[in-house]
């Protein structure tokens, strides 16, 4: 059964018209005018970029997006177009209207798109939970139990009588997140907020999310961090307002013919086709305490044989190619599933990288080149520590150091 179904969902640009100026001059406007005289011209609005109103702000946030999400799935929306995924999440939580198309939600919905959005500053933690209870559609008779669960899960028991305005960002986030998870709506929308909590809380949330998903709840998780996380079992990437790739976690069922990733190929050959090869999943296994390598595994469906396949992975930070990994050419003799795993030694810093996968297929001399990009956030290895430098290097390999007095070396 579906939990969310969207058909032709379109959302136009956000209205960002300047606010009309109020009445007479104020102190700040007088200073502003003075400043303008001193500078010799009116202040340029920061919003008027080089391309003014017609830039990115003028683009549709979502363009004709259709998808179906089944009950019990955990879907990540890792970007790279975060405006699109945020718009989708805001539409789901009813804080944004659609321009065209329709979206159906099967069941109740709870969501936290931005940090601290749901809490009122002048209430204590306890009052905030009681007040939100009704909005969360938790029955009144469960009020006490709900309060206890939320305070226990968020670990805010000892701060229950403190005003929300005295809470730190992390504290209010914990409370808000705990409320949503404990209210157990059937669809949960969470923005890019998971990074705020500490590791322990993070882990507890993950377990709770998995538990709820297996009970039939559906999750939508926004933010680039989820691109590598193993939590989600489906990843919907947005680019320029459209779904650029929709990947199910490796090992899951794949729709017949073509595979879910078939439309993400940018095929250099004139014949736009993925007749020979299809990517059905990318999984990133982050380093653990026992092994420090990151493994990137690509699942391919080989639809024509024999063919020679060469994989090239470019690891990018912004537009900089940090390094390129070229695999040996493999020859596939029969139709099969091909699994390619590359092990990455501990090299990456805690930065946002992208992996660009290029696949060159050679079938009797006919070459096809395909490309796909995938976000990759390096997870710092357990025990990784700051190296005490302020300039950020693009890599953090654990190189060997040796510092010794000279006399000792001579011995």
């Amino acid at each position: 059964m579906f939990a969310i179904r969207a058909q032709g969902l379109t959302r136009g640009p956000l209205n960002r018209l300047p606010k009309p100026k109020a009445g007479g001059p104020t102190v700040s406007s007088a200073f502003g005018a003075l400043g303008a005289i001193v500078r010799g011209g009116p202040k340029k609005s920061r919003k008027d970029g080089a391309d003014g109103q017609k830039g990115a702000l003028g683009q549709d946030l979502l363009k004709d997006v259709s998808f179906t999400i089944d009950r019990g799935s955990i879907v990540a929306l890792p970007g790279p177009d975060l405006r699109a995924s945020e718009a989708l999440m805001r539409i789901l939580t009813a804080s944004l209207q659609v321009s065209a198309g329709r979206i159906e939600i099967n069941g109740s919905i709870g969501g936290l798109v931005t940090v601290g959005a749901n809490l009122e500053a002048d209430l204590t933690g306890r009052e905030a939970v009681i007040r939100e209870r009704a909005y969360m559609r938790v029955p009144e008779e469960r009020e006490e139990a709900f309060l206890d669960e939320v305070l226990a899960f968020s670990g805010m028991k000892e701060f229950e009588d403190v005003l929300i305005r005295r809470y730190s960002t992390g504290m209010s986030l914990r409370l808000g997140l705990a409320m949503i998870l404990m209210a157990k709506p059937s669809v949960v929308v969470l923005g890019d907020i998971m990074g705020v909590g500490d590791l322990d809380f993070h882990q507890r949330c993950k377990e709770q999310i998995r538990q709820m998903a297996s009970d039939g709840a559906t999750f939508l998780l926004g933010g680039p961090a989820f691109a590598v996380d193993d939590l989600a079992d489906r990843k919907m990437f947005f680019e320029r307002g459209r779904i650029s790739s929709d990947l199910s976690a490796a090992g899951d069922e794949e729709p017949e013919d073509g595979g879910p990733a078939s439309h993400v190929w940018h095929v250099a050959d004139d014949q736009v086709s993925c007749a020979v090869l299809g990517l059905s999943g990318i999984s990133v296994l982050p380093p653990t305490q026992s092994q420090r390598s990151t493994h990137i595994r690509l699942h391919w469906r080989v639809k024509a044989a024999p063919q020679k396949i060469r994989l090239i992975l470019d690891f990018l930070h912004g537009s900089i190619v940090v390094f390129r990994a070229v695999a040996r050419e493999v020859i596939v003799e029969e139709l099969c599933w091909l699994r390619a795993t590359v092990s990455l030694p501990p090299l990456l810093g805690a930065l946002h990288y992208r992996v660009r996968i290029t696949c060159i297929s050679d079938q009797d001399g006919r070459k096809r080149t395909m490309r796909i990009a995938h976000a990759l956030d390096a997870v710092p290895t357990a025990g990784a520590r700051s190296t005490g430098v302020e300039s950020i290097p693009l890599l953090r390999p654990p190189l060997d150091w040796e510092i010794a007095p000279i006399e000792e070396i001579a011995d």
Partner: protein
Amino acid sequence: MNGTTARIAVANLSKVFDLQKRRKGRSGLSSRELAAMVQLGRSVLRRGVRVGRRFYALSDINLEVGSGEIMGIIGRNGAGKSTLLKILARVLDPTEGSVRLEGRVASLLELGAGFNGDLTVSENISLHIALSGSKPDPDLEKRILTLSELGDYRDIDLDDCPGGASARLSFATLISVNSDIVLADEMLAVGDTRFKQLCLDRIGQVRDEGGCVLFVSHDLRAIAQICDRVMWIDRGKMRLVGSAKEVIRAYEAELHAKISALDPTASDDAAQIIDLRLASRAGEPIGALRLNRASYLECVFQHLRPDIPISLCFELTNGRKQIIYSAARTIEPVGTDPRAMRGRLKIPPHFLNEAGYQARAKVRWKVDNEPRKEVEMKTDFRAVDSDASESVWAGWDGDRRGLVAPRLAWRFGISDRKRGRAKPL
């Protein structure tokens, strides 16, 4: 001098770089700039080389290299070796003094420079033969094509050739065209043993034909092997000219003396960097890094005030100043005496890519209530893919992109089902 005519004659050569930054539209100094000026002022007082905001990269160099002579140039980082070579190659203009070169010059300073990606391989060769002053020569072209192993790519644009083609082609061309004067910067470090041999052969040939070779390297052993005479440049000045053996011995002795000369009263700095160099595992200085071998960045420094903890930072950047690696370690004071220390950073094999890099070593410290201070030394080096069979790029014809080129392990498995065990391919 064993030749009768001087191929290279340099008299009273000086090169001044203006350190004054053209900074318009701003007035006042930030605290950082102020600190930089104080630092500059200190170094002026201490070294006496910098005058105001002008920097004497070379001052009063006199040099004559005769026919059939191979001359080595050694010196520490930033001593002015490369500046001298660049002036001889006419890339830089001297500020004072005169330079006279007798014959055709082949400068192997920057491999790939002067080669146009929009021309085919053969056009590039013809262009360079013409530039060297020779008539079109099909035999020479064929020789260059064989040497650079680009015979199959003769009529293909250089940009579309495999990675490293440009460097290989320029090396092969420069070494093959007729020249009387060869200017070589860390030449022997580049390339594999076959190239090394070719290079030595060519140098021998140039010598036999009455030409001369000027050879700059950090690799003292290579210098001792092939050079007749050696000039030691120290902070832009000629320190010593003489037989290779004699100069190298003096050079090493001074480095040693400097390391052991621990005089905390000489300056008020808590530390001083003596040397930063690329070295082999055994600690021998090397001219360039070979990708298939482990190399070490060695920083020799003095901890002059053991009451202050210092930290050593190694930073590795590429040619575009993108930081690849940067890390620091704190050195806690031990005892009460100043110490000479050596920090070594291991650069593992199969980590860097074939490119030019810059390494910096910084030593920092902080005395209570005073701004943090640091001293810095930098060295440029090249990483070369000298052994094709061991290369990370073996079997790959395309672009060799990347700041680094780590060797990664790939595994392939196939299976007839989507799930389930895959048998290795």
